[in-house]
C-alpha cells in the first residue's frame, strides 16, 4: 500500500468511525428517557451495534498504526475529529444526567433516519471498495444497518402520518436536520484522493442515490421536498466543530482519561 493510498484510506476510516461514535454516544444518552420501554430496548440494540461499527473502524486504524482503539475514540481533540456536525449536536435541551433533559424525539428520529439512509448508501458502495478490509466490514455491517434504517423509517412514517402536533414537530426537525445533513454526505477536503483511489464512490453519486430515495419517501408522505442538503455550520470532515462535540468528548473520555495507559 503506497503512502497516498494509505492516507486516503485512513481519512475515510476516521470519518466513518467518528460518525458512528457520535451517533452511538448520543444514543447512549437516551437510555431510560425514550418514549416507551419497548423502544428503550430496541434503540439500545441499535446504539450498541453502531458503537460496535465504530470499534471495527478504529480497529482497522489501529492495525494501520494510528494508535490504540480507545486512544483514537477518546483522546483525539475536537479539531482532529472528522464526524459531521449534525451528529455531534445535543439530543435536545437539558443534560442527560439530572439536569432536566428535555430531549427531542422528533429530532432524534429525523437525524437517525437520514443518517442511516446515507450510511446504507456508503456501506453499499464500500462493498466495491479497492480496500479489502473495508469490503469485509461493509458486508458485516450491512446485516445490521438495514434493520436500523427500517427502524427509523418506521418511526419517521408513523410520526408524520399521525398528523397534528407530531407532524408539526417532525417538519420542524426535518428543516433543522436538512440544513446540516450535507455534512454527513461530505467526504471532506480530501474527497478526490479517496475517490480516485477507488475506496468509495464520489459524494455526488452517493448524494444522488440518497436524494432519489428521499424524494420518493417525501412524496409518499405528502411532504414538501426541502431541496439541496445544506452544510450551514461547516464541514466536520475538515475539523470544523461546535461546543457540543467538546462536551461530548469530555464526557465520554472522563474515566478513560484518568489513566489511558492501564487496563480498565
Amino acid at each position, binding site marked *: 500500500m503506497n503512502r497516498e493510498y494509505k492516507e486516503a484510506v485512513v481519512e475515510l476510516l476516521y470519518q466513518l468511525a467518528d460518525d458512528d461514535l457520535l451517533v452511538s454516544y448520543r444514543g447512549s444518552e437516551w437510555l431510560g428517557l425514550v418514549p416507551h*420501554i419497548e423502544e428503550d430496548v430496541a434503540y439500545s440494540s441499535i446504539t450498541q451495534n453502531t458503537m460496535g461499527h465504530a470499534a471495527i473502524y478504529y480497529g482497522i486504524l489501529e492495525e494501520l498504526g494510528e494508535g490504540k482503539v480507545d486512544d483514537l475514540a477518546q483522546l483525539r481533540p475536537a479539531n482532529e475529529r472528522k464526524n459531521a456536525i449534525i451528529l455531534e449536536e445535543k439530543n435536545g435541551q437539558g443534560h442527560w444526567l439530572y439536569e432536566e433533559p428535555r430531549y427531542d424525539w422528533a429530532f432524534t428520529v429525523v437525524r437517525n433516519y437520514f443518517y442511516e439512509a446515507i450510511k446504507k448508501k456508503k456501506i453499499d458502495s464500500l462493498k466495491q471498495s479497492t480496500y479489502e478490509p473495508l469490503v469485509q466490514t461493509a458486508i458485516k455491517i450491512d446485516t445490521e444497518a438495514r434493520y436500523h434504517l427500517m427502524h427509523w423509517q418506521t418511526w419517521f412514517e408513523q410520526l408524520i402520518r399521525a398528523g397534528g402536533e407530531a407532524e408539526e414537530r417532525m417538519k420542524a426537525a426535518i428543516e433543522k436536520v436538512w440544513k446540516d445533513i450535507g455534512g454527513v454526505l461530505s467526504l471532506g477536503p480530501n474527497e478526490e484522493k479517496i475517490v480516485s483511489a477507488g475506496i468509495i464512490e464520489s459524494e455526488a453519486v452517493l448524494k444522488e442515490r440518497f436524494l432519489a430515495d428521499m424524494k420518493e419517501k417525501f412524496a409518499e408522505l405528502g411532504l414538501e421536498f426541502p431541496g439541496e442538503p445544506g452544510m450551514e455550520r461547516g464541514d466536520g470532515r475538515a475539523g470544523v466543530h461546535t461546543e457540543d462535540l467538546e462536551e461530548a468528548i469530555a464526557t465520554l473520555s472522563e474515566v478513560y482519561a484518568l489513566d489511558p495507559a492501564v487496563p*480498565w
Partner: protein
Amino acid sequence: MAISVRDAEKVKYREFMERIEAGEKIEADDWMPDEYRQTLIKLISMHGISEIMGALPEKEWTPKAPTLYRKLAIMAKVQDEVGHGQLLLRVAEDLIKPYGKTREDLIQDLFSGKLKFHNVFHWKTKSWADAGLIGWLVDGAAIITQTNMLDASYAPYARALKRIAAEEVFHAQHGEAIAVALAKGTEQQKQMMQDALNRWWPALMMFFGPPTAETTGSSKQEITIKYKIRKNTNEDLRQFYLTKYVPRIQGIGLTIPDETLRYDEEKKEWIYRQPDWNEFLKIIRNEGPMSQERLRIRKLSYENNAWVREALGLNTAVNV
C-alpha cells in the same frame, strides 16, 4: 342445605392453600384469594418498576464507561434491566386486570409514591467503580432474592424469574470483571474500588430488608412465605449473601468496612454491624439520597414524550 357465600369462599381458600402446599402452581386465570393477588401485585409491580428505576444509577456511568468494550457491555446490561422491567410489568398487568387497571396506573402510582422502587436504587453513584460494584454486588444480591422465589407458587412470576436470573448471572460476571480490573489495577483504581465498597456496604446490608417487622414497623415476609411465594426470610438471605461474598470481596484485596464482621462458628451465623434502619425508613418514603432526582427524571421523560404516545394512539401509556 344451602351453604353461605362466606362458607363457599372458605372452601375455595382451603382448596387453594392445599394446592400450593402440595407444590401446585397458580396461573393468571386461576381463582386466588384477594390477599394473595394483592401481595403478588405489590411484589411484582415493585420488582418490575425497580428494574426500570434500577437502570438509572448505571445509566449515570454508561456514556462515561472507560473503554468502548466497557461502554458496549454496560449498555447491554442496562438494556437487559429494562427488558426485565418490561417482562415483569406484563406479569403485573395480568394481575391488576380484574381491578380494571393498566400499566398507566402503575406509573401513576410510582409518581405519587404509592408504588415503591427497591431501596438499593435510591443511593448515589460517585465514580465508575460504583458501576462495577452495582453489577457485581447488587446484582449478586438480586440473584439471591430471585433464587429464593424461583419456585414461587405463582407460575407466571416463577417463569419470568428463571429468565431474569439467567441474565443476572452474566451481569454479576460483568460487574465482577470491572471490580477485579480496578482492585488489581493502579493505586488510584484500587482506591476508587475501595471507596465504592465503603459507600455501598450499608446499602448492601439493607438490600434484603429488615430482619424482623419490629426493626422497621412492617414487613411482608411472613405473608409471602405463607403463600409459598418465597422460601427464606430476609435474614436468611443476608446470611447466604455474606457467606457467598465476604470471601470473594476479601479475595480481590478489598476491605469490608465493618470491623465487627465475623462468622460465629457456634451459632453458625455472621455477626455484622446493623445498618442505620432509620435511613432505610427514609428511603422507603422516597426520601433517600437520590429518590427525588430519579423520580423526577422518570416523570420528566414521561411528560416530555406525551406527544409521541398520543401520536402512536396509545390510550394507555406505556412510557415509564
